[in-house]
């Protein structure tokens, strides 16, 4: 995976699979460090699974006995001079945090974060919050607000509209420089 945003999609898909009703994605950048945190209120996992989860042979999928999502994510962070951590509590949820040195040559580009959020929004039983900030500027996007306003965020027309809005806000936040 060549984009951080694709990893974010992959990690958030785990949250959906863990029956989370809310997934919060925080992308925060200061002068030196980019931190991406995915927090869910899904079913969580026990300590034994937490220890093994960043290894390729740990998976809950039934179609194969290999799971590469978290190992790839850990590798992407460590390659870029950052760190990876996972905290989870059975029945309460999981938080996956990865950090990256912004200027490290081995840091993957952010990629299309708006397209990632769009792909997640189609999950009918999960709400998403995106907190995007760069050097103190930023925005918050919350599907619960849209739903409260009567918008069905699983309809293609709505997904397209919201994706384009998020894309525009990211460009404004980043001031035209690519993260």
């Amino acid at each position, binding site marked *: 995976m060549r984009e951080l945003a694709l990893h974010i999609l992959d990690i958030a898909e785990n949250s959906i699979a863990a029956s989370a009703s809310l997934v919060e994605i925080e992308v925060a950048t200061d002068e030196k460090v980019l931190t991406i945190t995915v927090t869910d209120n899904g079913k969580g996992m026990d300590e034994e699974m937490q220890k093994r989860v960043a290894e390729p042979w740990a998976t809950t999928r039934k179609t*194969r006995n290999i799971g590469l999502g978290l190992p790839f994510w850990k590798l992407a962070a460590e390659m870029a001079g950052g760190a990876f951590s996972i905290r989870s509590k059975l029945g309460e949820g999981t938080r996956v945090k990865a950090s990256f040195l912004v200027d490290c040559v081995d840091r993957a580009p952010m990629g299309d974060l708006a397209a990632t959020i769009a792909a997640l929004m189609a999950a009918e039983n999960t709400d998403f919050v995106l907190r995007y900030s760069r050097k103190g500027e930023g925005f918050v996007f919350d599907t619960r607000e849209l739903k409260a306003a009567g918008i069905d965020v699983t309809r293609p*027309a709505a997904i397209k509209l919201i994706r384009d809005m998020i894309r525009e806000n990211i460009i404004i936040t980043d001031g035209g420089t690519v993260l």
Partner: protein
Amino acid sequence: MKTIADIMAIKEKMQREIILRDNLSENETRLVVGMATCGISAGARAVFNALVDEIAVRNLKGVKVTRSGCLGMCKLEPIVEVYVPGQEKITYIRVDAEKAKKIIASHIVNGNVVEEYMITNE
């Protein structure tokens, strides 16, 4: 910065498309994109977004794009399953953004299954 209020303003203009859950769900055509690690790394996100764009641009009613986990055929990803009410499920494999547009135009709009993209008994 665009806000929820902007979305609301647009919503008023295109009420028909973004309204509350309509009563279509039982008669709805669904396109399901495999969105596990295998699908994502093969390009499922681009396929999902291309399907959404094509449906939105063509203003198609009663058509939804959704996602699923690993379908167990990782090497054939990106995979799109098409459920048209009253018809058998059709599975398309190794889909990309261009193929996604053709699936909408041919299969969803005109009712002609795109046989060349379909899964075969390999």
